[in-house]
């Protein structure tokens, strides 16, 4: 009730509340309009909204086979990305969920397939589904019939070419995992199993494929645990529960990312250091506050005029919940302390003095809007000046970012990722002469190239920019990277 009283304008809080009651289709459309109207902005709210929406999509969608579900999620994802392509986290979350669904599906299949072959099976079923679409699959996913292979073999080998770009393996080679149990049915065209496994391994090292990390423990444990009877009774229902659980895990991750990052702060912030940061980011603020519990240091904040200065001012003096009002629903301010309350010396200055003060700064900590696979980042306007000035003074630049902001996409023109906001923040609209005669640009974000960044601190640890591709590979599946652009697949 109290939040309702605050006003009628919809925001993240409203949206999350409405999710349960509304039919899925209107929830989707609703989020699309909220994104278009910029009533949900910034990475975290967008990520939270997307994850919750996908949870509903999965929960309420009636599906008999996993490909239908994947298609459905892809379709929803495509629409969301189209609504606001510059909020890259939306796409990230969709890809994460897709990857998770594929993993679950594969486990399911592994249960059905023979144990000995399952290792070599990595990726092959899902590869196939992408290419063939659901139309080929008559029954539920665990139906591995050799017949199907023989019918689709020809078409697949040509279609698969597109995937090779991303280091995917040739279709024919990955095909024959079924030898052990179904050898007798295997079509004549099948290659000897031994050979195919070698090829698989040699193809795998490509950074884009995802052999390691999250999924491997699942695989082994499941293989041991599965019994024949279990395999047979495995139904989509269990899968559904698992997928939902997986999405909930992602939601939890979003929730805890900042704390995880903050936990590492003592390793990077030392006593009596001078630290420069800008804009009002929750992640950075938590990071600094955590360090302030043990150490005394000085923080210089550039106010990041004109889009974020008010929030920045507030974050210096008042509580932390500046991040966009919608989030307070979820993050009932655990900390109400501001930086100055925490005993840190805080100096607020204009963006123009960044270069002048840089010589006194020991470390620059930047918040980010999105991180790109090449190690560059999209951050609040002004970030690039800071990074550049830091480079000149050889000051280390640390970027604080949740893994969910890390996007597998690598756009060719960074200009297209930069949002242009309301010029009214720069020039008052009342000023008729200026409005009439000037073009006023107000870019909201900046692109910072990877060579200006020294270190990324994410919720899973610290990494060099050049290592980010590896994390991308761990979190996203190759086939999902360009799912929103059919022409690239």
């Amino acid at each position, binding site marked *: 009730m109290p939040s309702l009283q605050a006003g*009628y304008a919809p925001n993240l809080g409203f949206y999350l509340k409405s999710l349960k009651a509304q039919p899925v289709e209107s929830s989707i459309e609703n989020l699309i309009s909220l994104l278009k109207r910029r009533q949900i902005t910034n990475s975290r709210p967008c990520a939270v909204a997307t994850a919750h929406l996908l949870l509903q999509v999965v929960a309420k969608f009636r599906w008999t086979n996993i490909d239908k579900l994947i298609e459905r999620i892809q379709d929803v994802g495509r629409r969301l990305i189209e609504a606001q392509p510059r909020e890259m986290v939306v796409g990230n979350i969709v890809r994460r969920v897709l990857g998770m669904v594929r993993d679950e599906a594969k486990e399911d299949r592994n249960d059905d397939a023979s144990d000995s072959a399952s290792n070599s099976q990595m990726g092959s079923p899902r590869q196939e589904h992408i290419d063939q679409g659901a139309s080929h699959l008559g029954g539920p996913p665990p139906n591995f019939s050799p017949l199907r292979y023989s019918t689709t073999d020809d078409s697949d080998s040509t279609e698969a070419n597109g995937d090779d770009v991303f280091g995917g393996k040739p279709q024919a080679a990955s095909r024959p995992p079924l030898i052990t149990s179904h050898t007798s049915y295997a079509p004549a065209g099948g290659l000897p199993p031994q050979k195919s496994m070698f090829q698989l391994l040699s193809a795998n090292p490509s950074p884009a494929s995802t052999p390691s990390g999250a999924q491997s423990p699942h695989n082994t444990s499941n293989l041991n645990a599965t019994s024949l009877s279990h395999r047979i009774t495995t139904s989509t229902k269990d899968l559904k529960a698992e997928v939902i659980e997986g999405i909930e895990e992602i939601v939890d991750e979003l929730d805890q990312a900042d704390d995880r990052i903050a936990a590492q702060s003592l390793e990077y912030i030392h006593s009596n250091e001078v630290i420069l940061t800008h804009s009002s980011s929750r992640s950075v603020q938590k990071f600094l506050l955590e360090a302030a519990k043990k150490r005394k240091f000085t923080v210089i904040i550039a106010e990041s005029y004109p889009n974020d200065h008010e929030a920045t001012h507030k974050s210096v003096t008042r509580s932390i919940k500046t991040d966009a009002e919608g989030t307070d629903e979820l993050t009932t301010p655990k900390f109400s302390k501001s930086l100055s309350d925490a005993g840190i010396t805080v100096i607020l200055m204009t963006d123009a003095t960044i270069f002048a003060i840089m010589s006194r700064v020991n470390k620059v900590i930047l918040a980010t809007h999105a991180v790109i696979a090449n190690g560059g980042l999209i951050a609040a306007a002004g970030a690039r000046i800071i990074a550049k000035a830091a480079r000149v003074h050889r000051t280390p630049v640390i970027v604080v970012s949740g893994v969910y902001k890390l996007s597998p996409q690598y756009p060719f023109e960074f200009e297209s990722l930069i949002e242009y*906001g*309301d010029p009214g923040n720069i020039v008052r609209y009342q000023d008729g002469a200026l*409005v009439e005669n000037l073009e006023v640009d107000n870019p909201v974000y900046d692109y910072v190239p990877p060579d200006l960044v020294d270190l990324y601190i994410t919720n899973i640890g610290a990494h060099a920019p050049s290592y980010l591709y590896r994390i991308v590979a761990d979190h996203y599946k190759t086939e999902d990277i360009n799912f929103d652009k059919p022409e690239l697949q």
Partner: protein
Amino acid sequence: MSHAQKGRVAAGGKGAAKAKKAAGGKKSENDREDTLQAVILADSFETRFNPFTLERPRCLLPLANTPLIEYTLEFLAMAGVADIFIYCGAHTTAVQSYILSSKWHPSTSAASPFNTLEIVKTTARSVGDALRDLDSRDMITGDFLLVHGDLVSNLPIDEALRNHRERRVKDKNAIMTMILRAGGLGEHRTKAKGVTPVFVVDPTKNRCVHYEEMHPLQAHKYVDLDEELLKDHKDIEVRTDLIDCGIDICTPDVLALWAESFDYEVPRRHFLHGVLKDYELNGKTIHTEIVDDRYAARVFNLQSYESVSKDVLGRWTYPLVPDSNLVAGQSYKFERGSLYKENDVMLARTCKAGKKTVLGKGTSVGAGSVISNSIIGRDCQIGKNVTIKDAYIWDNVSIGDGSNVERAIIANEAVIGNSCKIQPGALISYKVGISDNTEIKPNQRITRAKRKRDDDSETEEEVPSDPSIVGPSGHGYEFRDAEEFSDDEEAAFHSSLIYNTQHLNISNASISTLSSSLSSVDEPTGPRSRLSSFTSLSDDGDNEGFHHDAVQGILDTLHEHGDFDSAKLEFMGLRLSNDATDHQIRRAIAVAFSKHISQLVDGEDQKTEASKAAASAFATSGAVQFLKNVALSTGTEEDAVDFLRCLQKDAANRSSGPLVLAAVCQRLYEEEVVGEEAFLRWWEEAEGMGEDEDVEMKRVRGKTGVFVEWLREAESESGSGSDEESEEESEDE
């Protein structure tokens, strides 16, 4: 809001459980409070966008390739409105089919953010009628937003709403809050040009205490403030800098007020002005919420169409900008320098698509063409070496090689030939064809719309093309406002009479000259206006109560074809109790007659000719006697002239004013109420004003000119007779 809720709970609160049980109705009332309703006036009841609005409603005209109503609905969705009522007049079906196929209608689209959306067709002829209709329908249950279908805004209204509710809890009489955008004191493209709204505000209470509209051509260049206002309010701000975006937060009381006073037609000049004047009577207060952040403006005429388009391209309306792709199917992308391009645009290698330009899907631009500061819709074919500057080109237009378009609007499916020259201010409506090598003059308006014939039949006839304008193989004719009531009237008052200066209100060029003289209007509103409020007690502005009641009384009599003898008694009573002057009496009578007749002329169901309408008004029993005895009780020529002037002034505000005035003059002469001398004198005085004369006043007496000419001729022919008459009159003195 929270206050409101608490207050209500506390008030009804002693036995909360009891209240819950007993008052299911009460609970539903609370529920209703939780949703927000909005009324969109989709019909403007104006013709400022003619000739385009002949074929399409204003709210569907594209602004930056998105229909205007989309912006309005986005604004309401942004504000979290739940229930929408769209009031349509003309072109209801077009609006209806558009809304049904859009994402907005909750029954046809899952994307609709609204709970209910109702399209109301109305026969209303003014905003006032529509709101009175709304009142009678009983659909509004609580506070609601009243907006126009041409609003473009990204304002968050939560704060205004909260303030409104707080005021309302404190004082039940705070019935309305207007949201106004500060526009700065200097010149501003989005501020209303020509007519300046003057809001007199008490900044301590955010209360609007007086409202007036001024324009540079009016003779009376002062705002008249009531002495009382200065006593009651310590601080007063007279503001001419506000952009009136027409967003009103209203309580149901507002509708009741509209219903009570059925001569109010427009929300500001009539309703706001009237309610503020009647503060003593009804005690209702109207408040203002002046914002100086974010964007809000209405597209109420063609100039504002241009300025709001520029604002949209300059991203002042962010996030309502083309690259947000608000309408499904749009795919605009933003490029530096405000070039918005949709997918599938074909640009020749040597063409230049410059800054602040929008290019819709499927449009192709030929080699060597230069486009700047323009908006071009979908599927347009633009030839080689075409120059397009500051132009607004809608969908499916084709422009031939070597043509030149500057600051014009070209509507859907128009075809411009090779080497044409379209001059600034030209408006080219739907499907018009211009043949090769034609030049369209500045401010020319060309249409192909079928014209309604004036005899009562509904048949529309094609108008033959005018080759002198669109060229030998072109299609279209020049559009004139007055043509709507031509034929029959022409028979009565010669066809040569058709002329008007109304386009002055529309054309770009003429307005730029007006705006320079605007600054002179701004100045005197300060201290001088206060002075004048003391001196002008006997002027038009005062004793509004008498005027109002008197007009009402006479109108009633005229409507019911009642007896003027009893009306006269009533009238004299009113006059005594209000201590009205002779001038006020004449004004009231003039207004009543002109209003009655113009209502007959513009009548919705059957249109009456002005002359017949006038005749019927005068035929009411005792009407002529009434006029002679009451309006012109002294019988002097001065009084008669004054009466005519009052008539003229009132008619100037009506669309059919010229006809009404001419008809009434004729009647007055025939019934021997006003003599020739008075007519001639009135006419000469008006002529004598020359340049100083108000444009509207000049326009309105245009048609009477013929009558006066005729009088003059008659006088010279049968000089003796009329002399006698005038002598008689002078003897009477």
